[in-house]
C-alpha cells in the first residue's frame, strides 16, 4: 500500500489528517480514523457523514496524485453506492437493505477498532524482557537419563554354563555295538558256500540264535559279502522277483 513518498503528504492537510495514503493500513484503517474524528462512540457514528468524509478525502488525494491504490477506489465506489442507497427513497426489494449494509460497515469498524485497541493493550502489558525480567543467570536444569543395567545371578551362572557347554572340545565316543564286519561276512559266506550243494537262501548263511541288532548287521554284511563274491566270480546270485528270497550257489569250476 505504500507508494513512493514524493512529499505531497505534507502539502495539504485537514485538521488531524495528512493528505496521503502512505500512512494508512488500507481503506478500513482510513475509514476508522475518519470515524474517530467524529468524536463519538463508533456505535453512534453517522455512516452518511463518514461516507462523505471518505469520498472527500479521496477526492483531495486524487487531485494531488493520479495513482491511488485500487483498494481505496473500490471502497470509494462501494461507499458512493451505499450513500445513494441511503439517500434514495426506501426500496424494500433491495436485500440486504442499505441500513443493513451500513450496520455491517459499522460493525467492521468496531471490530478493527477493538483489535487495534487490544493490540495496544497487549503491547502495554508488563512484558517479559522489557518490564519484568527472568533470572539473569539461571544455572539450568539437566535431566540425565542413565541406564540401570540389570542381570540376575542365575543369568550370570547360566551364561557361564552356556559358554562352557558351547566351547568344550568336541570328541565322540561310539559305544560298542554288535556288528559283523564285512571281512567276517566274506569269510563266513565263502566258507559256508563250499558246504552248500545247490541254491541256498541268504538267510541260511546267517548265524543262528543271535540278538536282533547283530542279526541285522549280519544280514547286511552277508548281503554285501555276497555281492562282492559275485563280483569276484565266485558265486552266482538270483532273485525271482522283488522281495523274493535271495539265493546263491557256488559258481561251477
Amino acid at each position: 500500500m505504500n507508494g513512493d513518498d514524493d512529499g505531497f503528504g505534507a502539502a495539504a492537510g485537514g485538521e488531524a489528517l495528512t493528505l496521503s495514503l502512505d500512512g494508512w493500513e488500507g481503506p478500513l484503517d482510513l475509514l476508522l480514523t475518519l470515524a474517530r474524528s467524529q468524536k463519538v462512540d463508533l456505535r453512534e457514528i453517522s455512516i452518511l457523514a463518514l461516507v462523505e468524509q471518505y469520498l472527500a478525502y479521496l477526492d483531495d488525494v486524487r487531485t494531488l496524485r493520479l495513482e491511488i491504490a485500487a483498494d481505496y477506489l473500490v471502497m470509494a465506489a462501494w461507499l458512493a453506492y451505499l450513500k445513494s442507497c441511503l439517500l434514495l427513497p426506501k426500496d424494500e426489494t433491495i436485500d440486504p437493505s442499505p441500513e443493513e449494509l451500513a450496520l455491517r460497515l459499522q460493525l467492521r469498524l468496531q471490530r478493527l477498532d477493538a483489535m487495534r485497541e487490544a493490540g495496544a493493550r497487549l503491547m502495554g502489558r508488563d512484558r517479559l524482557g522489557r518490564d519484568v525480567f527472568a533470572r539473569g543467570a539461571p544455572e539450568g536444569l539437566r535431566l540425565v537419563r542413565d541406564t540401570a543395567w540389570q542381570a540376575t545371578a542365575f543369568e550370570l551362572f547360566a551364561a557361564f554354563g552356556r559358554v562352557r557347554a558351547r566351547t568344550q572340545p568336541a570328541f565322540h565316543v561310539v559305544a560298542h555295538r554288535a556288528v559283523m564286519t564285512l571281512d567276517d561276512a566274506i569269510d563266513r559266506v565263502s566258507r559256508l558256500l563250499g558246504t552248500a550243494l545247490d541254491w541256498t537262501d541268504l538267510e541260511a548263511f546267517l548265524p543262528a540264535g543271535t540278538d536282533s541288532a547283530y542279526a541285522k548287521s549280519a544280514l547286511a554284511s552277508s548281503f554285501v559279502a555276497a555281492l562282492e563274491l559275485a563280483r569276484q566270480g565266485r558265486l552266482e546270485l538270483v532273485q525271482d522277483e522283488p522281495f523274493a528270497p535271495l539265493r546263491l550257489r557256488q559258481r561251477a569250476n
Partner: protein
Amino acid sequence: MDEFVRAIEAVLFASSEPLSPDEIALHVCDGDVAAGLCSLAERYVGHGIELVERGGRWHFQTAPDLAHLLRRTREEPRRLSRAATECLAIIAYHEPATRAEIEAIRGVQISKGTLDVLMEAGWVRTAGRRESPGRPLLYATTAAFLTHFGLSSRRDLPGIDDLRAAGLLDPLDETALTLELESDRDED
C-alpha cells in the same frame, strides 16, 4: 521452610525456562507440586521478585513495579509494526485464525513478513489447517506468547470477555466482507 518447597524453589530458580508442575516433579521428590507452587508464590508476595504461572508453566520474574529500575540496563525488545501488532491481537483473540480472516478484519492484505515476524518472535505458530475449501493454514499463539505478555491463559487477554459479549469476536460473515474486498481476493 519446607524441604519440598525449598526444592521447588531451587529448581524454578535454576531453570532457564518456565516449568510445568510435571517437569518440576521430575526433579523434586514425591509431593504435591501444585500445592508447593501455591505456597511458594504466596511466600514471594511483596518481594522484588514473584512467582507467576503462564499457560500452565511457572517461573520467577521481577515485580512489574520495579521495571523502571531494571529497564535502563536492557534494550527495548523489537518494536512491532502496527500491522504486526494488530495481526497478533487478531490471532490471540480469535485463535485459531486463517490469514483470510486476519485480512478481512484489517481490511487489507497482510504484507509479506508480518506473520513471519510474529513466528520468529515465537509468539505465533501454525496450528493445522481448517477443513474448508482450500484447507487454509490456521494460526494460533504459543506458550511463549503468554509468558512474554504476562498472561496466565488466553482468558486473561485484556477485555476478551467484553469483546465476546459485544459479538466482536464472532466468526466473520465472509460474504458480507468480500463485498468490499474484491481487490484483496487475489492472494487467498
